C-alpha cells in the first residue's frame, strides 16, 4: 500500500485515476434474463397485464460536469455526463381481480418506477401495461396548497381525484372524521404537524372506492393507531372487488394485507407468488 505523506498528493489529479461512476444498475443479469412468457390463468379475470416492461431514465449525472459546462456543452455533440438508468428490465406478470399484491425489494430496486409505469405516469422504453381501468396511485398531496385551510384542501384534493362537488360535500364529514381533524379543519394546512397533514392526505385519497389502487409506502404515516385504521381501510377497498398493489418495507403489513407478493431486485422480477413464501425467501436472502 502506498503511504500518502503529502497532502498535495491527495488532491493532485495526476496521481489518481479519473473517477468513473459505477453503473447504478449493473447489467449482469441476476437471474435468467430471457423474459418469462406471461403465465395466464384462464379461470380468473385479469385486471392488469404487464408485458416485458423496460423503463429507462436518461439523467445528467450531477448537474454540470467540471469540464464542459455552460455554452461549451451546447456545442459539444458528446453525451458525456448523461447516464442511462435502466430501472426496469423486462418485468412481466398478470394481476387478477380481487388480489392484493405486495411489492418488495431493497431501496432503489425499481418498485416505485414499476408502480408509476402501471399508473401510466412514466412511459416505458419498451413493453406495455394493460389495465381494465386506469390504476390510481394513493397520493393526493401534490394537489394540496399549504396556505389554504384543510376544508378547502378537501375540496381541491377531491376534485383532483376526479369527484364532482356533490360527492365531495357528501364525503367531507367522513374524511374529517377519518383524519381526526375536527377541531383544526378550518386552519391553514401549513400549521398542521407532519402527522396531521399526512393523515388528511391519506383520508382524502382513500375516500374513494378504487378499482385498481397503488399504495406506495403511504401506510407508514401517523401513529400506530392511525396505521391500524389505514390498513383496515385498505382491506376494505380490496374486499369491495378492488385490486391493490402495496409497496412497503414492512414485511408484517405485506403478510397482513396481501395474498400475493412480487420481489423485485435491480429492476428484475426475482420471485412472484404467495405472500408468505416470497417474504420468507426475501428475508432469507437479506440475512
Amino acid at each position, binding site marked *: 500500500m502506498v503511504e500518502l505523506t503529502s497532502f498535495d498528493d491527495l488532491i493532485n489529479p495526476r496521481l489518481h485515476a479519473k473517477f468513473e461512476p459505477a453503473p447504478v444498475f449493473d447489467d449482469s443479469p441476476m437471474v435468467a434474463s430471457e423474459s418469462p412468457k406471461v403465465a395466464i390463468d384462464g379461470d380468473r379475470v385479469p385486471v392488469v*397485464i404487464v408485458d416485458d416492461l423496460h423503463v429507462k431514465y436518461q*439523467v445528467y449525472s450531477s448537474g454540470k460536469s467540471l469540464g464542459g459546462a455552460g455554452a461549451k456543452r451546447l456545442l459539444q455533440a458528446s453525451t458525456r455526463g448523461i447516464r442511462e438508468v435502466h430501472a426496469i428490465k423486462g418485468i412481466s406478470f398478470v394481476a387478477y381481480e380481487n388480489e392484493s399484491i405486495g411489492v418488495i425489494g431493497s431501496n432503489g430496486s425499481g418498485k416505485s418506477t414499476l408502480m408509476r409505469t402501471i399508473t401510466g405516469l*412514466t412511459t416505458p422504453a419498451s413493453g406495455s401495461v394493460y389495465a381494465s381501468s386506469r390504476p390510481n396511485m394513493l397520493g393526493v398531496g*401534490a394537489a394540496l396548497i399549504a396556505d*389554504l385551510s384543510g376544508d378547502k384542501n378537501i375540496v381541491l384534493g377531491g376534485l383532483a381525484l376526479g369527484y364532482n362537488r356533490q360527492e365531495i360535500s357528501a364525503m367531507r364529514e367522513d374524511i374529517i372524521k377519518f383524519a381526526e381533524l375536527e377541531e383544526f379543519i378550518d386552519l391553514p394546512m401549513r400549521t398542521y404537524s407532519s402527522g396531521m397533514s399526512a393523515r388528511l392526505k391519506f383520508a382524502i385519497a382513500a375516500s374513494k372506492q378504487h378499482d385498481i389502487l397503488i399504495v406506495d409506502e403511504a401506510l407508514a404515516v401517523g401513529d400506530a393507531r392511525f396505521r391500524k385504521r389505514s390498513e383496515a381501510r385498505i382491506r376494505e377497498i380490496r374486499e369491495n372487488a378492488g385490486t391493490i398493489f402495496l409497496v412497503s418495507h414492512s414485511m408484517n403489513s405485506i403478510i397482513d394485507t396481501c395474498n400475493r407478493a412480487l420481489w423485485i431486485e435491480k429492476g428484475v422480477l426475482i420471485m412472484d407468488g404467495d405472500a408468505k413464501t416470497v417474504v420468507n425467501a426475501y428475508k432469507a436472502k437479506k440475512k
Partner: protein
Amino acid sequence: MTAAEYAEQQGLNRVGARPSLRSYLMQAWQRRDFAFELARSRLQATNQRNRLGMLWVIIKPTMNALMYGVIFGLLQANKPHDFPAYVVIGVFFFEFFTGSVNSGAKSITGNASLVQSLSFPRITLPIAAVIQQFLTLVPMLGVMFIYCMILGTPPKWSWLMVVPLLALFTMFNTGMALVCARLTVHIRDFTQFLPLITRVLFYTSGVLFGVDRILNAFPILVRMFDFHPLYQALQIARGSIMNSVDYPPFYWVVLGVWAVVALVGGTIYFWSAEERYGRID
C-alpha cells in the same frame, strides 16, 4: 397467445396511451371544476399572507400603469389623445397576456409532483393558469373602468363590447399558454427567454405608443400592425371604451381568426405530447 392479444380479448386497454383528441377533451371537460378550483385556490393562496391581501391584484397593475404613464408621458412628444386612459387600458389588458403566457409556461414543469402523482388530462394545468389570470383580470377591469371615468371618459354602451373582446382574447391567450407549456417541457431554458419575448412584445404592441403616430413614415409597418393580434385586442378595447380612438371593424375578424387558430393549434400541439409530460428526465 401474446400478452397484447390476451389483453385485447379480455377488454384491457394500454395504460398511458394518449387518448384520441375527442375523448381527451371530454376528460378535460369533466375536470373543469378542478381547473377552476385550482385557479381560485392558487389566487387566494398567493396573496393570503400579504397584509393587503387581494388588494394587490389591483395595486400592482395600477402602479405599473402609473409608472409607465408618467415616464412615457414625459418622454413622448407625439402622444396619443387622452394618453392616461390609453396607457391604463393598454397596460391592464397586456398584463393578462403576459400573465397567461408566463404562468402557462411554468404550469407543467412547475407542477412536476402533481403531474407525477395524479392522472388527469394535463391540459387542465395550463388552462387553470389562464383561468387564474382571468380571475385576476376581472377586478382589474372594474378598476380600469373607474379610472377611465376619473380620467374623463363617460360610460357608454360600447363598453359592453369588452365582453366579446375578452372571449376572443382569452382564447388567444389560452392557445399561447398551451404552446409555451409544451415548449418549456422540451426546453427548460425557454422560461429564461420568455420575459424577454414578452418585454419585446410589450414595446411592439402599442401599449404605450400610438402606432400610426410613431410609424407614419413607414406605411408598410403600420399596415403590418393591422394583423398584430395583441395590438388589435388593445385597439378594440380602447375603441370601445374611449371616445378618441377608432378602429376598423375588420379588426374583429382578424382577431377572431387569430383566436381560433391559436386555441385549436395550441390544443393540438399540447395534446400530441401528452405522454411526454409525466417523464422525469
